[in-house]
């Protein structure tokens, strides 16, 4: 019954503490007023023990017993202060967060910045929110330094995923008290649609059929040019590269092809069968983008207002996936 009551209390308390959910941009300073502190279970046990020691000292008239009890009480008070100090006046800022596919874990990088001359130890961080798994990360932040922690949270839906609320807590040094604070980091992650599993193969044959030709832009070797970011590694002209001495200013070169360019291979949302659910279509498009990149097939991309000409490379891929994640744009 007591634990049920405690559970209720905790729920209420956390609701109250969570009431402000605004994102705090930039570096956040854990002001002392937003650091809370409460005894832990061992801390409560410690209080009971102090009381028993005190009664014992009275009953047997042990003067040193009084002294000892008071010493322990004072140690607990000092511990309260040190625990508080371990967390308070810490600066926080959100770091990078790479996009992920739905179904994966979004990784948020968080920086803990200690501008004080005392090291901070055993600060536990986790994301709090409905239905989030309880995965803690512990961090130590040395004096006058910064420590980075990566916290992950499942990315379930495509689109922007804001970082959940972060809870920071510490019991250091004696474990009798727990100081904690909440932080809404200013960080979000773009979640791409989940790539369809067992998706049909790239619709290359479709293009082939129409034009009666082979793979678009892959037929005729037209020469080599300098490597540009985004060129597929499969197209590096290894023979030429091998001839050149990199020390003499030689550079990577890429083979390029002509012919068949008119017949571009396209990933077109509208050409997908209508019976498919929108999310499934997006999912299939996502899979195809990944596959086209993997096979080094340049692809055009059409989705609603987004129309991209055939290309390859991370920038193109990102643009496509971004469009898929955000479709339909609001």
């Amino acid at each position, binding site marked *: 019954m007591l634990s049920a009551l405690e559970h209720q209390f905790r729920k209420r308390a956390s609701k109250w503490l969570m009431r402000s959910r605004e994102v705090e941009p930039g570096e956040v300073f854990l002001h002392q007023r937003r650091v809370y502190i409460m005894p832990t279970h*061992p801390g409560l046990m410690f209080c009971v023990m102090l009381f028993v020691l005190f009664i014992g000292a009275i009953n047997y008239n042990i003067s*040193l017993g009084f*002294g000892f009890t008071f010493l322990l*009480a*004072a140690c607990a008070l*000092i511990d309260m202060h*040190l625990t508080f100090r371990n967390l308070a006046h810490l600066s926080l800022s959100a770091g990078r967060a790479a996009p992920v596919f739905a179904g994966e874990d979004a990784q948020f990088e968080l920086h803990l910045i200690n501008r004080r001359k005392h090291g901070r130890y*055993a600060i536990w961080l986790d994301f709090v929110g409905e239905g989030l798994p309880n995965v803690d990360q512990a961090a*130590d932040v040395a004096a006058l330094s910064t420590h980075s922690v990566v916290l992950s949270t499942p990315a379930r839906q495509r689109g922007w995923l804001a970082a959940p609320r972060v809870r920071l807590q510490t019991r250091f040094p004696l474990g009798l008290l727990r100081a904690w604070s909440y932080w809404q980091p200013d960080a979000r992650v773009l979640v791409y649609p989940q790539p369809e599993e067992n998706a049909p193969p790239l619709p290359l044959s479709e293009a082939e059929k129409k034009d009666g030709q082979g793979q678009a832009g892959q037929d005729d070797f037209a020469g080599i040019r300098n490597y540009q970011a985004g060129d597929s590694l499969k197209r590096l002209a290894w023979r030429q590269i091998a001839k050149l001495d990199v020390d003499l200013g030689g550079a990577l070169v890429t083979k390029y092809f002509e012919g068949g360019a008119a017949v571009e291979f396209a990933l077109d949302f509208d050409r997908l069968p209508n019976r498919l659910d929108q999310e499934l279509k997006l999912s299939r498009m996502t899979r195809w983008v990944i596959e086209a990149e993997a096979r080094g097939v340049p692809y055009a991309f059409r989705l609603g207002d987004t129309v991209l000409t055939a290309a390859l490379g991370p920038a193109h891929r990102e643009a496509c996936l971004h469009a898929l994640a955000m479709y339909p744009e609001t």
Partner: protein
Amino acid sequence: MEKSGAPSLMRPFMRRITQPLSRDKSDTLLLLATCVLVLAPHAGHLPAWIVAACSAILLWRGWVTFRGHRMPSRNLLVPIAVLTMAAVYWHYKTIFGREAGVAMLVLLLTFKLLEMHARRDLFVVLFLGFFLVLASFFYSQSIGAALMTIAATVAILTTQLSFQYTGVVPPFAQRLRLGAFILLLAAPLTLVLFLLFPRIQGPLWGMPVDAQSARTGLSDNMSPGAISRLAQSDDIAFRAKFVDPPPPKSRLYWRGPVLGSYNGRTWTPLQVRLKTNRPIVIKSHGTPLRYQVTLEPSNQRWLFALELPQTPPVLRDNASAFGPNLELLASSPINERVRYDAASVLDFELQPQESATALRLWLDLPQGFNPRTRELAATLRKRSSDNAEMVNAVLRFFREEKFRYTLEPPVLGTHAVDEFLFDTRAGFCEHYSSAFVVLMRAMGIPARVVTGYQGGEINPADGYMTIRQSDAHAWAEVWLANRGWVRVDPTAAVSPARIEMNLTSVIPRRTLGGLITLDAGQNSWLAKWQALRQNWDAVTNAWNQWVLNYTPDKQRSLIQSLGFDSADWRTLTGLLAVAASIVLAIVVLPLMWNRPQFDPVEAVYRTLCRRMARLGCARLAHEGPRAWRDRLSASDSPLAPERRAAVARFLDSYERARYGTMSKDASAVVSNLKSLLAECR
């Protein structure tokens, strides 16, 4: 060639202990060491089998940790634990009470070490440790015990915090420093709490029967050797602090048990009481001498005061009264150090009028003992009928015959007094007083033996007079018509020095069975040693007075000396709150006040940043000084035009100072920046 076998066997072991231990192992070993430190003070009083059992369990636990073995299963542990608990019951015949309780706690702690699984168990072990530290105060509250406690507390704190680290674990020395640091920070608050926390005097419930064990001190009987054994003890019987100037040593008779019944060997208090409500008549002369006595626990009911106290001293929770023969008796045994105020008159007449029936009690002698003494008494009696003259005659006899004062008298037979008076003639105060009283009684003079302490040593370090067990003494009282009971000290007749000076100066102190005789007068080494001992005594006395004897009374007088009229709990609580807040503020604020130190250039820059932020032109997180300056000096900047120029100048200088070549004169750069900053306002 193969070297001897032992080192090669030792090698794996050495390798194992020299290689760094895993975190778990080192934490557990630290916990074990802490437990040993907590348990050690109890080894002295626990029965040997418990000490052995605990050591075995600790070794077992150490071995399990060291080898990385699994902990023993509960099926093995529970029967062993139950067996030892049963053994405790069998040994003490109870599991309650203090001794058995402490034994149980000790076993519980050691067994818990073998049954630790969760983090919660760590706290159970440490909290049991705290209880055991408190329990060790049952046995000793000396300064040494206090130091030991501090060491144990630091160890417990260090262990507790060692388990809290998650990633980086600093080296042991650093953790120990943090543990000690916590204790150090806690010390001032502890002092305030100790002095001001409203005290309640115990006990809250009945003291267990086994609360006290035997202690040294005067007992209520005197048989050969009783006092000479005490005289070899350096233990302190009590201390006295004189309000008035202390009297000369020869008048320092601290009266204790009065013995009137003799069976030929042992003196005991007179059991027969005629009328206990018979008033004691004392005629006092002169003004009373005031002093305060701090009595060490003796487990006896006797209280000591100079002859003769006017009123029974007031003890808290322990009424005291005069016994029928003017000895001071507390209603229950003195189990802890007590302090009382007393006032005594040194010149008095005690019961100058006394009925013949009452006096007859003090004439009783056992039949069939000491015929030669009786003969001597009869011879002396014939010479005079004046009792006072007879007393002097006997004293003269002691003085003029070859009596010797010694702490190691020969053994006496059945007719102890006869043998002493006529054969051995060597003895201690108990022999002299006993023989004197027997002689008196044989002559028909009412007489009795009084035991107590004689003398005392003023400690120049703190002005307290220390009375040790070695000052234990026995003398006699005789009843003379119109003068009442008169103190006679036959020992003084033989060895006046015993009364005038200290016992130690009368009897050469022997060590190593008399091989070396230490002479206090000539040896400066010994003098130094004595000075050292006196200083140490003073420290111990201060400890006793201020720490161990800090009672509600003492607390009240402290509060009153601070200038508060009433020392009720309200004053105390208020005072405590104020003092604790001040102390906490003093301790905690410097810890909060460790702002990061910026170099002066950076500090000036930060001032500007703050100032601009107030004006709504805060530097963005990604902005360097140049980008910021460009933004601030752009035409759409919210800054006033004259301020724009100043800020731009400042930021240019800052950029040069920070990222340009190092200027030789750093202070000039800073002062330049400061003057530019002033323009920016």
